[in-house]
């Protein structure tokens, strides 16, 4: 159950759905809710991910029924029908998704029924019933995937053995999502694979629709999309390979490449050739920056998907000293926590950091106060404590409003170079 939170990281369910739709592009959210929700869910999620504004619909351009007192008393279904008709008339979208705000969910508007009426007339209108108050934006992303598998993905008995779906990087909820997806896609392409990533440049509804033809889902997260994984297996006969978080740096990325190779039974020579070429490239640069960064005792704060990779890369590959890693996800399952802890602790040379599960601003700050650190990788929320401590700070995890992020990545081989560039300090 959602807890009282100080300075929460991210929006409600609607924020996550909206971000997922925005990252695909040409998918139109129809926000059935009170006035203000369009702005709130945009500002609370996508706008805190490196400052970008999604090109298609966002904030005040998102269609909304803007429910007022009248609708609270008499119901909002007619207002929603008018709104949908307007959308169909003027918005040039591939599909329309009704998002269920707190107001209609409490008064009991039947948005599913409304959507079905439009679908009967041949319009691609779908309802995502999970209401705003059901949870945070992460649940929203999961709900968007559920809607994709319920309505968009086409079952296919014929599989394309070189086609994979890359999942687990939630767009906007990770500031470097687009760059990270591009870097992992680049690496998979070197293995001769074609990649559906659903989100970002060059992707569209078509990639979601044909994801049922894929030979494999590659899920780069220790805990997200477990329901989706099951649906792909049972409904679409697509197995999944789970990798614990976004791989950062040569060690984890090469491990990632080998696992993909094994899962798809790829030519071992090709796999090793790709790994060697990329590692050579990375070390070509590292070799030119020996001793350029001073030794750091570091802390990482953020979502599991990124803090695992960040801790492991900086400790294993860059020989910094991990002191504390704070995982901010709202986690309900003990097994998820244990898995995450295991992944962070599995270090090659050095003793693992203290690992804490906490998302509340105050409690995170109190934890960080206890430790002697010289580098902090975190979000806007950790900026103040870093300034107080007078230590180096890098905006790395969500939310980030202090820097503009286009396609910059921290994942894979190339991302690790960018990350080290960013960590250079001449103080």
């Amino acid at each position, binding site marked *: *159950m*959602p*807890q*009282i*939170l*100080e*300075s*929460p990281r*991210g929006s*409600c369910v609607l*924020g996550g759905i909206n971000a997922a739709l925005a990252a695909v592009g*040409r998918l*139109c959210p129809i926000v059935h809710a*009170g*006035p*203000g*929700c*369009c*702005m*709130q869910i945009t*500002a*609370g999620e996508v*706008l805190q991910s490196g400052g970008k*504004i999604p090109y*298609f619909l966002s*904030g*005040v*351009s*998102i*269609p909304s029924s*803007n*429910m*007022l*007192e009248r*609708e*609270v008393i008499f119901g909002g279904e007619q207002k929603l029908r008018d*709104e949908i*008709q*307007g959308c169909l*008339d*003027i*918005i*040039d*979208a591939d599909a329309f998704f009704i998002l269920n705000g*707190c*107001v209609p969910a*409490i*008064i009991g508007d039947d948005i599913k029924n409304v959507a079905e009426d439009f679908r009967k007339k041949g319009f691609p209108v779908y309802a995502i019933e999970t209401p*705003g*108050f*059901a*949870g945070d*934006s992460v649940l929203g992303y999961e709900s968007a995937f559920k809607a994709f598998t319920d309505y968009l993905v086409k079952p296919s008995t014929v599989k394309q053995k070189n086609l994979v779906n890359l999942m687990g990087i939630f767009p906007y909820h990770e500031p470097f999502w687009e760059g990270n997806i591009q870097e992992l896609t680049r690496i998979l392409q070197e293995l001769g694979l074609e990649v559906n990533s659903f989100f970002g440049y060059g992707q569209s509804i078509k990639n979601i629709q044909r994801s049922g033809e894929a030979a494999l889902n590659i899920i780069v997260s220790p805990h997200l999309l477990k329901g989706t994984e099951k649906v792909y297996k049972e409904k679409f006969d697509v197995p999944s390979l789970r990798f614990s978080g976004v791989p950062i740096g040569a060690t984890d990325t090469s491990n990632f490449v080998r696992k993909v190779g094994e899962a798809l039974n790829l030519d071992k020579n090709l796999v090793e050739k790709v790994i060697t070429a990329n590692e050579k490239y990375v070390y070509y640069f590292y070799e030119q920056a020996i001793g350029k960064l001073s030794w750091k005792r570091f802390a990482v704060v953020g979502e599991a998907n990124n803090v695992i990779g960040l801790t492991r890369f900086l400790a294993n590959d860059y020989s910094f000293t991990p002191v504390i890693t704070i995982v901010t996800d709202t986690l309900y399952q003990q097994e998820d926590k244990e898995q995450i802890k295991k992944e962070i602790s599995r270090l090659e040379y050095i003793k693992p950091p203290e690992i804490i599960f906490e998302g509340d601003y*105050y409690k995170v700050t109190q934890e960080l106060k206890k430790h002697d650190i010289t580098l902090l990788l975190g979000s*806007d929320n950790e*900026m*103040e404590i870093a*300034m107080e401590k007078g230590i180096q700070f890098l905006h790395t995890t969500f*939310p980030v*409003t202090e820097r503009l992020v286009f396609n910059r990545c921290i994942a894979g081989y190339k991302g690790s170079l960018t990350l080290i560039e960013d960590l250079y300090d001449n103080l």
Partner: protein
Amino acid sequence: MAEDYRIREQRPHTYADGCGKSKNLECQFRDKKMEVMDRTFSQGLQCQEINSIGALLSLEDSVFIVHSPQGCVGCSVTSVDRYRVGQAHRGAKIYRSPRMIVTNLDQNDIIMGGEKKLKEAITLANERYSPKVIFIFASCASGIIADDIDGVATQMQRDMKAVIVPIHCEGFKSKICASGFDAVFRAISKYMLGTENIPKEEGLINLFAPTTTSYKDQVEMERMLNLLGLKANYVPFFSSLEKMRKVKAAQASTSICKVFADEFMLELDNKYGIPFSHTVMPIGLRNTDEWFLGIARAAGKEKEAKAIIKKEHKRIGPEVEQIRKRLEGKRVFICGGTGRSFAAAVLIEDFGMKLVGLETPVYDQDAQDDIEYLNKLHGDFIVDIANMQPFEQVNIVKRLKPDLFIGVPHWSARFGIPTTHVLEGKRPTMGYDGILYLGYKIADQMENAGFNRKLSKYARLPYKESWYQEDPFKYIKKV
């Protein structure tokens, strides 16, 4: 629900949806023939809760409890940003974050009520920060399930030193987001002014500032008041409980934004005999004059003000003339909030530009005063009474083909036309110094539209081509 709940829609002759030519609207309003309209298709609005939180988030020694699901604090990011940047501009070494706690109302609370969680949050706020003020903001969800935030506040207040201030800003109650400002000031009046009498301070002026005022703007307003021998009590932006209590000691009041603290200033006049000036936003030459004269009059310093205005005009006049040469005759479309868009419409005439279209969120008596003035300045122009609604704007802008678009640039920039903004909460836009900053900015951006021109080759808008052939106001229907 608070017994004194009042939203902008309840003020006489206030309209949030509509359209037309400016001269027609002026007549209709004067003849009381304006009708209540609604849009059968619309895009997202700004809710009043966004305004309520924004107005207060920079207050010192405060904790802000938002009694809502997690999503209702999304827009606070803008105010948090302005708070952090504001600290940087004021020379702070460490940028504080506002202490904001969300009660995270969930499925259970919706059924069982969320008052227990609210009490917990208040206790947490007190334990963590021992603040002077704890604000509670209502939301759509807390409003519909009828959580008694006033009752909780009263009950918790008994054992707490911090002043607990509940604010009724339930989103679904109003489609005019400025209602959220009113809710804030009603709560300030009720809970923060204190009951004791405090002595008047000669020359102290309440300067009501919204969160979009930059530090440079504050400095300029204070400079202008100082020229009159007056001192500003700058509230509520970057202020404190102490400064709020000082409001009663002031000699007069004024506001930087027309829709900000207007009711409150009237109340201060009625209750404490503090006269006030309610004019325009001090953006542009004439507006700054009017704003300055307004507060000078209320403080009994009209003569001095006139002399200063003369001097200021002499100081910046030649530069305004230079800017005018670069901008004269250009046609402009303006979109923005009520205060800024009307102010910008006068500003552009300082530079000899012509208004062809204007979006304003509300049409009321204040707007009527502005429209009357603008009709004299610019002649007839198109008015879209809308809180943004970019789908209408793109349609109108594509027809009008203005030389310049002033306002939120995200959609019009994609047509390749030059765009700029007068809403810059981090830069100097107000008073006499602000005129020059805006003038140079407008002229430079207008003359150098390369980015937008090149962008337009690749940029996409989400609307069907057929929409641009339709009546932009086709979805505005009589209720």
